[in-house]
């Protein structure tokens, strides 16, 4: 790298830093957020956490019930993700440049993906609450819709990246569309797709907790209930269980990824 480029990079970094500081300062001013007050509140907040969020013997009795709810939430997330993945595979095949059948279907797939992805899962949950009411279907659908959007987009990129050249070659041999999709596109992009599905399962378990608070189901509801009755010991236990569950799921998916690649 030449001296000049280095110099230019340095300048760019400095300017970027200045801009970021300016924006931070501005947004703090607009929202009346005071850094000093925020920092000052820290010790008290942490002190409160340590004195209230303790897992006691008494709260441990609730563990079986909590684990039951946690299971429910985890399986709902997995179900939402895998069913969404199936839909996403079809949408992404329609939407990807490499495998699209015609321009209209491609547009249609991209539109669905874009709409469902750009509305946050929590917003989906609130919208669906209106028509489905407070039950687990609402939570499932909210996760499902958001996941379809994300996975379709991710799968389209995997397909384009992985199999463009093989698709050209197989087309040139006289293979049919389904030969090409089944024997070139899917085998080549499957590991990448599974990796995205695992990522989405992890994400959905986190979101499911939040969605559960709104829809009154799963671990989110349990959390909300004990939180509102100010039984903080149980709240701590629930939080701890969620963290452990997420870590375990992450370890499992990392292992699967390693084996697959």
């Amino acid at each position, binding site marked *: 790298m030449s001296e000049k480029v280095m110099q230019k990079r340095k300048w760019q970094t400095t300017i970027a830093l200045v801009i970021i500081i300016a924006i931070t300062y501005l947004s703090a001013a607009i929202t009346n957020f005071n850094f000093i007050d925020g920092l000052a509140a820290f010790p008290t907040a942490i002190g409160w956490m340590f004195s209230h969020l303790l897992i006691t013997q008494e709260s441990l009795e609730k563990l079986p019930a909590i684990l039951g709810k946690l299971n429910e939430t985890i399986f709902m997330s997995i179900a939402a993700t895998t069913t969404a993945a199936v839909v996403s595979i079809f949408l992404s095949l329609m939407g990807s440049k490499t495998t699209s059948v015609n321009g209209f279907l491609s547009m249609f797939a991209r539109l669905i993906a874009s709409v469902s992805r750009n509305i946050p899962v929590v917003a989906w949950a609130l919208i669906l609450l209106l028509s489905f009411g407070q039950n687990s279907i609402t939570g499932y659908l909210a996760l499902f819709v958001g996941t379809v959007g994300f996975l379709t987009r991710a799968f389209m990129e995997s397909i384009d990246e992985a*199999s463009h*050249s*093989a698709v*050209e*070659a*197989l*087309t*040139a*041999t*006289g*293979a*049919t569309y*389904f*030969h090409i999709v*089944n*024997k*070139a596109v899917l*085998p*080549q992009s499957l*590991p990448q797709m599974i990796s995205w599905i695992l990522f989405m399962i992890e994400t959905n378990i986190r979101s499911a907790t939040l969605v559960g608070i709104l829809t009154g189901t799963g671990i989110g509801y349990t959390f909300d209930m004990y939180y509102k009755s100010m039984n903080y010991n149980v709240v701590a236990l629930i939080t701890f269980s969620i963290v452990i569950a997420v870590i375990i799921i992450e370890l499992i998916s990392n292992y699967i990824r390693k084996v697959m690649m």
Partner: protein
Amino acid sequence: MALLQIAGLSKSYDNETKVLKDISFNVKAGEFVSIIGPSGAGKSTLLRCINRMVSISSGEVIFDNAQVTSMKKRALRQLRTNIGMVFQHYNLVPRLTVIENVLHGRFGYKSTLQGVLGRFTEAEKEQAFYLLRKLGIVEHAYKRCDQLSGGQQQRVGIARALIQDPKLVLCDEPIASLDPNSSKIIMDHLKSITSELGITCLVNLHQVEVAQQYSDRIIGLNHGEVVFDGLNYQLTEDKINRIYGTQVRELITV
């Protein structure tokens, strides 16, 4: 009777600039023809007009007495079954094994269901192994393609083209990504396709020396026009300059 007749072929991707302009030539069965020309001359486009991987803007391509220009789905599939294609970047499915990739060349003869289920006859499998043996990579048959060297992958690509039992093989810069040693192996194999199996070969190349060494006949392309069409010894220095333009030639042939 020529196997391939091209008459007045023009191609434009955007309806403005013509990538190919009024191209005409015939290729007889059993010929080994090189197409040379600078990058962007339209060599890849020309090959892809022959098996209709791109549409033809105007003019005629007649392959084995069939009009290619206007072919629809079924006829097009039939046409492609008879034409093998070899690519610069091999265009294999990297995660699949060598033998699977070779057998992909048979899809043109299969119904959708047969192909999706992966039903191949014993004869097809034997043929696949025969070709791999002939190309000297039979010991890699069950390896994944992404574990092979470039030269080996290109030989898989050639086996995939040959198992189609084609009348014509189109090669788009088959050695452009290979070192000189592998290049020689690949060119020797391509040459033997014609000399031993009698299959016609049309090869895009950008190395003039390689074209002169291997082909019966050379077609020179520049800016989408045929500027030379003759036997390899007729390609004189001054003709080469016409294909490449005087100054750039040094750069291209290194």
